[in-house]
């Protein structure tokens, strides 16, 4: 796959993250996550075609199964069961959120992070974009008030990390692949269990309703 196509797929991941920041509906959030995970699977599949590593193919299939099918199914069931049509709002308002998104993207492309984005000099642009996706995912976790959005934030952070691994040429390590598989599988199970628990006990997925803990 040419670098331009890869860059296009990576841009889709970036745009899904921007969308996750501005989206108001939970179903849209889930769809954005499906598209993002699908784009990641395409990038990873391309890497498999280049290297032929069978474990890499397992990771691709697992991403498709867990991130593209199972997790969204669960999220949608949670949304329908509890009538959570609209996602909980953000801590910062929309213009301010967009300003910070721009700032974080600018930082990722700045000279400060050259050692990271020059791990493979020919992939400099792709690594910069992957880094900005990482920053945006972190910001999503911090800025969103909803538990569902926070889960998707962590899962997006995972996606961005895997993207960075691929473009830094590190995806060949069997250990890394097992680490990714473990994280995908177990974290989704635990997070979804907790999302259900939170809804049962707080009657909402709004994390600002959680105020039982104080010094």
């Amino acid at each position, binding site marked *: 796959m040419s670098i331009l196509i890869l860059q296009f797929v990576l841009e889709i991941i970036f745009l899904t993250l921007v969308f996750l920041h501005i989206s108001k509906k939970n179903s849209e959030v889930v769809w954005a996550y499906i598209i993002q995970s699908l784009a990641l699977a395409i990038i990873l599949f391309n890497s498999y075609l280049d290297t032929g590593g069978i474990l890499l193919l397992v990771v691709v299939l697992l991403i498709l199964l867990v991130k593209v099918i199972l997790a969204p199914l669960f999220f949608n069931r949670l949304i329908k069961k509890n009538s959570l049509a609209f996602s909980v709002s953000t801590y910062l308002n929309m213009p301010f959120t967009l300003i910070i998104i721009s700032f974080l993207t600018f930082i990722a492309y700045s000279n400060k992070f050259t050692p*990271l984005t020059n791990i493979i000099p020919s992939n400099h642009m792709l690594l910069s974009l992957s880094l900005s996706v990482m920053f945006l995912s972190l910001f999503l976790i911090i800025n969103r008030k909803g538990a569902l959005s926070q889960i998707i934030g962590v899962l997006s952070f995972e996606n961005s990390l895997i993207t960075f691994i691929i473009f830094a040429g590190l995806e060949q390590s069997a250990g890394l692949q097992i680490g990714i598989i473990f*994280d995908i599988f177990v974290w989704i199970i635990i997070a979804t269990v907790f999302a259900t628990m939170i809804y049962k006990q707080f009657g909402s997925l709004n994390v600002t309703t959680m105020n039982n803990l104080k010094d």
Partner: protein
Amino acid sequence: MELIFIISILIISSLINILFKKRIFIECVSVISVFTTLVLSTVVAIKVANFGFYNPFPFFYIDALGAIMILLVSFIGFFTVVYSIQYLRKETAKNIIGFTRTKQYLILLSLFLTAMFLAISASNPIFVWISIEATTLSTAFLISFYNKPSSTEAAWKYLIINSVGLLLGFFGTLLYFTAIHQVGGAVSWHLLLENASNLDPLLAKIAFVFVLIGYGTKVGFVPMHTWKPDAYSKAPAPIGALLSGALLPIAFVIILKFKTITDVVVGPLFSQHLLIAFGLLSISVAALIMFNSKNYKRLLAYSSIENAGIMALGFGFGGLAIFAAILHMIYHSCVKAILFFTSGNLLLKYSSDKIDNVVGALKILPTTSIFFILGFLIVTGTPPFGIFFTKMSILSVGIKFYPIISFVALFFMVIVFIGFFKHVSSMFFGEKPEEIKTGEESIWLFISPLALIITVFILSFYIPPFLNTLINNTVLLY
């Protein structure tokens, strides 16, 4: 073979706990399994003391510091299980939990211990990361154990903060992998160290910062500490002992492993300065919050943050302070277990973890109170206990090279003592409330703290030769 046995025994113990329904049986299985792991861990530690390392299979590698950690996890783990059995029986008798919860607790505890053993013995940094992630997942359910809104909130906070922290740690770890040109096979700590010189110095610095933030979240360094008071206060008291006495030092040791690689590339000063900065920040913030703490389990959590800071200062100062920091780690694990066990006794009696609700404890629970007060004296560094000497040794090294930092740290350590003393005096002295019955709940609830107090007391004046060898070898390695 010993390590395989340790891990197998713990997994088998979990499976037995899943399959069987007789309380006494699963309790016995849990105690026997942790006792066996303690014996086998001692064998491993002695082997490391004699031969320098333990490497039965390529997957495992235990050096001197790893051996100390294995010993610490099994030791604290054993007493935690012994204490937990009676603690859970009392909670069952009070209708706080049912038998199913007890089963879940013992299963999760075994899995938590297994994950910690794997984290400290795996030769591959990625498997170490997986194991640490596994500790997050098993402990999340232990923190939400009581199924109350507050415990679910604490567990959620713990899950999100630690997952993000560990993903950052994962990112840092993979940056170290850029030192190796062909990453196809398993990448061990040794391989990373051998190839460290290939690493770009600036990249090594960034990688260490990510690792320090990532695993530092698990240690509880300020400002990544916010999950800690909530998790420690909402988890069952014995779990607090394991989180503070076993998981904290393990996460710390992983940071140290990356420190040795970073030091090869950029020299030791970079990582030392970062450790000093995080250490001092942790001590000062914890000291200020402890002073006004309203909950005694949260007080213990902040005390753990303070002690993590002291360990960081020790490794940051280097030289003799490293020896003291390792000893501090050992003393702290034991004394924090004492404090959490006795806080569990207080909770059973007073049904409250608020400091204001606990008065006249010395008259109501005399043995528990004496143990808690002794624990307070030990953890705050009162002579003649070991922590006094470790704190003094760390500060005396620090005063030579970083006098201002050392004086600031000393000042906050004094604040910690005053704050802790204020709370201890309000909880244990004064008139006892009429409505609370005098007397200990069960002798089994103070056997574990007693054994640990004796251990700390002995270790304050005598370090067994094999342990001394391990500590000396650690100083040479780190």
